[in-house]
């Protein structure tokens, strides 16, 4: 299997294109690895059914027993519970930051500490989240794992 990387200026979104004659084991293995990353989730936004890519989600939080996923310009109510999302998708970058919210590590711009030892998370969409001290170690472990995977 060949991999061709092409740099294109001013591309709106990165994309992968697969050219094949027959699906062989190697190709299936690559697709399996991508499956989680390219997974979509269904939900409702302003009473309309919508489908969003997991990689577009900035963070997910629970408010009044309802779960909401936030993308750059949408807030989507989803059916999945936080715990299930974390169990299934933590390996693609989701980490818990408080009892009621999880964040997509790939959407974090930077972290900042405050005097009360809370970590302020600055997201790429300029929103701010607060990480509870008790979830700090879990978050750093997840970040280390992602970092380790990238350097491999």
């Amino acid at each position, binding site marked *: 299997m060949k991999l061709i990387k092409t740099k294109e200026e001013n591309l709106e979104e990165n994309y992968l294109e697969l050219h094949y004659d027959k699906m062989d084991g190697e190709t299936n293995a690559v697709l399996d690895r991508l499956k989680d990353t390219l997974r979509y989730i269904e939900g409702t936004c302003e009473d309309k059914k919508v489908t969003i890519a997991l990689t577009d989600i900035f963070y997910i939080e629970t408010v009044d027993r309802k779960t909401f996923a936030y993308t750059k310009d949408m807030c989507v109510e989803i059916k999945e519970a936080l715990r299930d999302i974390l169990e299934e998708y933590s390996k693609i970058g989701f980490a818990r930051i408080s009892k009621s919210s999880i964040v997509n590590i790939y959407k974090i711009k930077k972290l900042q500490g405050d005097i009360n030892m809370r970590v302020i998370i600055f997201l790429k969409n300029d929103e701010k989240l607060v990480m509870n001290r*008790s979830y*700090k170690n879990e978050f750093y472990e997840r970040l280390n794992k992602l970092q380790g995977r990238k350097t491999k």
Partner: protein
Amino acid sequence: MKLISKKNFISIVCIFFTLITCGKLLAEKIYNFTDKYYTDNIFTILGFSVLITLVLSVHYYLQRFPFLLVFIGQYAATVAIVFLAIWLHGLLSENAPTAYMDMFWSITIPFFGGAIVYYICFFYQIRKANRMLERLN
């Protein structure tokens, strides 16, 4: 993660006790000082070790509260317990004239030292995490 549990509580007390006693003996050797209240002080160190381990074990349950509040609360509670113990001891036998002041510093120095180390580790961790995030993005 819970670092101090029921299982390892006694061993941590023993580690604190050994370290503080060794420090005390080393200081006595260096300054050629003879401790008149040797037995009393050994038991004080034991009590102090139990108290410090207790304070650190409670910290896990207080993580959802602001750090400064927890730190001040734990410091004030520790000082109060120790001063109460000195006062009770004073009822039974004679205290050293500087007992309160000595114990005040014995609590304050490790508390503030620990807090400074904790702060440094906290901000170091954030710096490290920011470097990782830069590499990921």
